[in-house]
């Protein structure tokens, strides 16, 4: 047998269909996987954002109606009060932040900033998180380094502070 030389060999490789399916799979699996993982990551981001948005309004409503009268820093006694904390097990049901954190995934760190301003009068609850922390499957790193925030502002009802 005579071994083929370079040019002839390359020409033959190009014409060969052996293992073609495997090669094509290797070529297509990358964009397909990126598409699927990207979809999963984006969906998780919006899913988490929706949960954050629901929680923000829930906490704001509890505070605006006076059902909850405390922040993580204690009972509200001044006309303007604000507090920033991270979601953790130390929050109790007497604190507005507790309701902002209920049901949020534990694998990310959520920061809650709550403000009650009797001058407006309003209540603002904002929940923020690193987008990359909640975007599972974000192999492309599209969400890394970004922060997403859910915010709800309601009118303060009744007496203030109370």
């Amino acid at each position, binding site marked *: 047998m005579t*071994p083929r*030389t370079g040019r002839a060999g390359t020409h033959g490789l190009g014409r060969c269909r052996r293992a073609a399916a495997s090669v094509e799979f290797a070529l*297509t699996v990358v964009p397909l996987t990126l*598409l699927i993982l990207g979809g999963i990551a984006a969906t998780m981001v919006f899913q988490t954002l*929706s949960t954050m948005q629901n929680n923000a*309004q829930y906490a704001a409503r509890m505070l605006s109606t006076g059902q909850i009268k405390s922040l993580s820093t204690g009972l509200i006694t001044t006309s303007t009060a604000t507090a920033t904390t991270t979601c953790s097990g130390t929050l109790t049901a007497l604190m507005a932040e507790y309701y902002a954190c209920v049901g949020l995934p534990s694998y990310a760190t959520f920061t809650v900033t709550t403000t009650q301003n009797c001058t407006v009068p309003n209540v603002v609850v904002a929940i923020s998180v690193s987008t990359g922390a909640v975007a599972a499957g974000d192999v492309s790193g599209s969400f890394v380094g970004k922060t997403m925030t859910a915010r709800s502002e309601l009118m303060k009802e*009744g*007496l203030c502070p109370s």
Partner: protein
Amino acid sequence: MSIVTRIGEPLMSDTDPCPRVSLRELAGSGDVRSRSMRMRRILSDRGAGVTLLVALLFPILVGFAMLGVDGAYMYYRNLMLRQATQAAALAGGNVISSYYTSGTNSSATIVSRAQQFAVANLPTATYGTVVAASDIVLGNWNAATATFTSLASSGGTSPNAVSVTGRHLSTSNNPVSLFLGNMYANPAVNLTTTAITSYATGQSFHTIIINDLSSSFSPSIAQQRAADQAILDCVRNSTGPLSNFAIVGITGHYAIWQNLVQASTNYAAVTTKIAALRSCDGTGAPACGTGSNVASGIYRATKSDMFGSATFNGTSKNIIIITDGVPNASNFTYTREDGIYPTPSSTTATCTSSCTDANLLAMAQNQATYANSLGVSISTIYYAGGTPANQRAAYAASLATLRRGTGISLVAPSSGQISSTFAAFCATMSSKLMAVR
């Protein structure tokens, strides 16, 4: 240089079983038989099968990706729109009493407040005008049929509900843009939601009025009667059928002018009692010459046969104090029944004898705080009575310190405005979100 797998055995050879079809073969024309054979050969060729499949399925795959990503995004934007609309409706509902107190049936404050909170949640610079002024509509909510009727269609002038519609529309230049919608010629979608808030919840609005029946307030007795009647009408007509109503008269002590009864079924009897309301002394009225002590009235209203009863737990309880705001101490020994202790269990009295006007105000504030701890809201209505003109503002401010919960403070509504002004009392009930569409 050879490519080998084993020594002496080439990777490729002329015996390679891979089908080989040249372009000339594919393009060439021949007889029917040879063309048929070529077609069979092409169809039997599995080369680039996966790529072809992916190419064919790619629009479908992208479609599913669009469903996943854009679907989640649309859900999120719809949630934001709904919440912003609800916030606007709740804010508007909370100031619905301004319609009555404006004197001109103006909805300007309601519209302004609703738009303020719509913009606070969805800033115009980013989201366009989500809630237009024309999308904030006053009307009436029928709790029985769960329907909203605008004032424009009913011709009414007594709104109890606010309807707010939030819109993301292409016609408003603020539709929701989709990420992948361009691929399907659907780059944006329109979203609309409506929220209705009302205090006409069908829930009870228990009310105890504390009327100042002291001699100094006698010039305002007619205004008190009119106010009592307007509030009774409001409780009977605009709140749940089980709402209770009572009147406690005060001088230095209290006296029950009307026991706590169901307003709807005792309306005629209570109306007669209100018409008979008079200043101190006589049957059912507290004694004259004992000063003016609001604390005693609040104390009485929180006893166990009134708002201190567990029967009223979880319901809307309201005390409405009508007075000239002057705490007027008298030289007698005050007892627990006069509200000298901050709470029923307290053993330290604010004062017992030689009480000052300041002591009486402190006692009233303590009683108001205790009542509020029972879930009672306290509203105040100031009439000048016999107060000198230069002291009225101070007394009105002093009286307003007794306001608690969702109560409001009104100052000297004119006789011509009494009916419309006191209709606003029902509007002081906390609005609730009634419907989202």
